[in-house]
């Protein structure tokens, strides 16, 4: 039997004893040798800015950082598709010795001339942080020569955690915001922040708001467009999903432009409905609220028969959730409850102590709450708590499968929209199709527990 040991230095980040006084020791650098599911600062910046499809994204560094993030997210664009290419200065030994600034300059000029992007982001990687290339100076020079914004992203991998990468991306976006013309933006306008248009999710959400009579000035960064971001300070409300990645931009816009923000989630019927009501209420618009109620009624009616049918078989099944941000975990706990399932493990990569308290509060007693889990900890609890389902990303998938446990991909590679009402139906279908699959009948750990789904 596998001997799962939890490292002593990790115990403050795992709440599994049901102790009421437990305070999560989170927002830390990952422990060396603990096989964290997190990546680095660069990863945080790259995933946030990636969907801006009419910008050039140039990675200044060695090839790995660029190769592993080529076409990495399922973020769709209604216009250009430049974001799906991977550009890299591909630093060589001589660049590391003599500096890579010249190579960066040449790369930028040639790429801008050929691809004619609306702006360029230059990502600084570990090695650039060490050799000290002045990317700011190169950016200013190219900006002047080519008359487009060239924005450094200070995302050196070792300078913090993925969350610091979110802030670096927001700082980069902050340099674009406020540089565009806002006179055509109507009063009742919002920006959608923190949705990445995976499989077209931003469009689903935007259409609901439009139907309510709310104008969407900019979607940041899903289906993001440089000109819209420039002018997004013309909106009167920022609606922020994925609290971790975009809150620093929302706070900056509040301080600088007096634009308030609300936090929402588009996963699950309740959270999705609340996201519409909150916006209507913000604008004090009875008309928008009535329309929102109409949307919720109409869309729920469409999916409820299917959800009820799923619930028949899923009731009592146990789920483990390990995702990037805490807000998604909250929504998933609620969405699973809606399907009759309970959560036996909930954790994320970037939560803060309030997030974990809230997570604990909405879960059943005895649920393991975990920050920055490593692969073995996930395997240990999924096994010990006998989960029927693991929700995570590609890195978590084999943990589930090797244990004979169903899996739902809720990460940025997914190709099915899981947001909005339609998304809730897709989510139910994914969960149901994996949990009720007949293949578990043949997996050694599960063999003998014959089960059959009704759908």
């Amino acid at each position, binding site marked *: 039997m596998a001997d799962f040991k939890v490292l002593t230095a990790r115990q403050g980040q795992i709440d599994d004893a049901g102790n009421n006084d437990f305070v999560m020791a989170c927002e830390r650098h990952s422990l060396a*040798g603990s096989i964290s599911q997190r990546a680095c600062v660069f990863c945080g910046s790259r995933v946030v800015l990636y969907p801006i499809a009419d910008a050039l994204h140039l990675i200044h560094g060695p090839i790995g950082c660029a190769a592993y993030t080529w076409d990495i997210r399922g973020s769709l664009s209604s216009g250009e598709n430049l974001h799906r290419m991977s550009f890299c*200065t591909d*630093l060589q030994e001589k660049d*590391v010795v003599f500096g890579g600034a010249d190579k960066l300059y040449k*790369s930028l000029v040639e*790429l801008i001339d050929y691809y004619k992007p609306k702006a360029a982001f230059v990502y600084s990687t570990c090695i650039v942080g060490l050799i000290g290339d002045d990317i700011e100076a190169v950016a200013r020079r190219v900006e002047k020569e080519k008359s487009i914004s060239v924005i450094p992203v200070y995302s050196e*991998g*070792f300078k913090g955690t993925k969350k610091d990468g979110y802030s670096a991306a927001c700082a980069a976006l902050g340099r674009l915001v406020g540089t565009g013309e806002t006179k055509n933006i109507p009063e009742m306008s919002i920006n959608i922040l923190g949705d990445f248009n995976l499989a077209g999710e931003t469009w689903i959400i935007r259409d609901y708001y439009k139907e309510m009579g709310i104008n969407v000035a900019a979607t940041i960064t899903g289906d993001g467009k440089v000109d819209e971001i420039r002018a997004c300070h013309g909106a009167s409300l920022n609606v922020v999903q994925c609290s971790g990645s975009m809150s620093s931009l929302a706070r900056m816009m509040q301080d600088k432009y007096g634009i308030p923000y609300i936090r929402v989630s588009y996963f699950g019927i309740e959270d999705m409905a609340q996201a519409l009501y909150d916006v209507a209420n913000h604008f004090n618009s009875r008309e928008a609220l009535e329309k929102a109620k109409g949307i919720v009624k109409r869309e729920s009616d469409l999916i409820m028969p299917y959800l009820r049918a799923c619930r028949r078989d899923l009731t009592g099944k146990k789920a483990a959730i390990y995702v990037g941000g805490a807000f998604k975990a909250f929504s998933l706990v609620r969405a699973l409850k809606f399907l009759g399932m309970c959560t036996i493990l909930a954790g994320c990569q970037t939560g803060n102590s309030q997030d974990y308290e809230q997570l604990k509060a909405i879960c059943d007693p005895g649920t393991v709450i975990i920050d920055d889990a490593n692969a073995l900890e996930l395997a240990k609890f999924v096994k010990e708590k006998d989960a029927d389902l693991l929700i995570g990303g590609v*890195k978590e998938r084999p943990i589930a499968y090797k244990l004979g446990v169903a899996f739902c991909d809720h990460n940025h590679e997914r190709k099915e929209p899981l947001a909005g009402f339609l998304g809730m139906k897709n989510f139910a279908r994914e969960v149901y199709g994996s949990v009720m699959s007949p293949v578990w009948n043949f997996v*050694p750990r599960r063999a003998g527990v014959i089960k059959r789904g009704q759908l």
Partner: protein
Amino acid sequence: MSHSFTATRNSCKLCMPLGAVMVVKGIASAMPFLHGSQGCSTYIRRYMISHFRDPVDIASSNFSESSAVFGGGSNLLTGLRNIIAQYNPRLIGIATTCLAETIGDDVSGILRTFEKELGPDGPVIVHVATPSYSGSHEEGFRRAVRAVVEKVAAKSAGVPQEKRVNVFPAIFSPDDLRYLKDIFFDFGLQAAFLPDYSDTLDGKAWSEYELIPKGGIGVDEIRSFPAAKASITFGAVTARMGLLTGAAYLKDSFNVAAHFIASPIGLRASDEMFDLLKSLSGIETPTRYSDERGRLVDAYVDGHKYVYGKKAVIYGEEDLVVGLVSFLSEIGMVPVVAASGGKSGLLKEEIARVNLCAHEPKVADGADFASITDHARKLKPDIIIGSSKGYSLAKELKVPLVRVGFPVHDRIGAARILSCGYKGALSLYDSVVNALLDSKQNSSSIGYGYL
């Protein structure tokens, strides 16, 4: 109008640490460990998991800002201790990333002290320098093989054994490795493959969670490498790397005969391997394989008219590309572009040696996918052959893509793509011919039922 680009656009290579990880994954009870930022290990995990669809745990020393300033030594040691506490591995393979290599940590010194602390019962610690600015994943793979051999092969490995051979594969699929192991076994040879990730990266359904997936070459087997009769190293370009190979070390230090042959892709390259096995074992090719060879030739004949003159764009690691040119040209196809992200400078020469086609392909080393696309648009290929990263090119040109090599991120069964030996050639051949027939069928409005 032609443009030249300083930047790499859609890379056709990966970084050195990935290659090193693959080697460590092929050793029993071993843990790959990247000395660098957390992202290096996590990105490589995700990349490999998407291909193999099996767990890939890779440890990291997870540099912080202070490690970059004051050195990563203490993070390295903390990381190693934590890995030993949780996984209790028999071997830890440490690859130093560009970050660690550049700040100039004295990793060897730190490890020497640590090994003393561990004592003789501790895990074997292997260190390989893999700064990604000095090569591709293919070089990281070679360097790691060499580093493991140098570190582990024992000075007193016992008396030489007539039937033992050390095998150093190129980056083959797990199914290739399984098949090659069968072949060596059927020749009565005791072959030890480094690396052998045929089980660790393509495992069975488990009844218990395995901290480190079972399989791989044992540390003791590597230790006794010097007692082998011979070493066989696959890969036409690797063969030219001489001193950088594990086999060269065994030759120089222990006088183990070193044979270098091309990757056995296609009929001729497989013949070359079987000839070597005959001479090493002293026995004739077992009927199973001579039958396979016969069926392969029969299939070559059956399908030759479907493929003759068809133009192919191929790309991948340099050893793979040489193998594919050899195979495609012997069935009458025309490789028009042969590209690799690697740049040993040897690709063109090695391709010229195996190419049976009168036409010389555009050999692009140090290539990226954007430049491969530019060449392909001009040369109008009928088929694309390589990793799944050529999909967008195939889609744009409306030609089929036959997936072979690493990575394959958009299909299931990447670990089971067989391309080595007669059976591998047959499987590759069927895929190529059928992809061309499929394309012909789909592009015609008639809907032929017989082809």
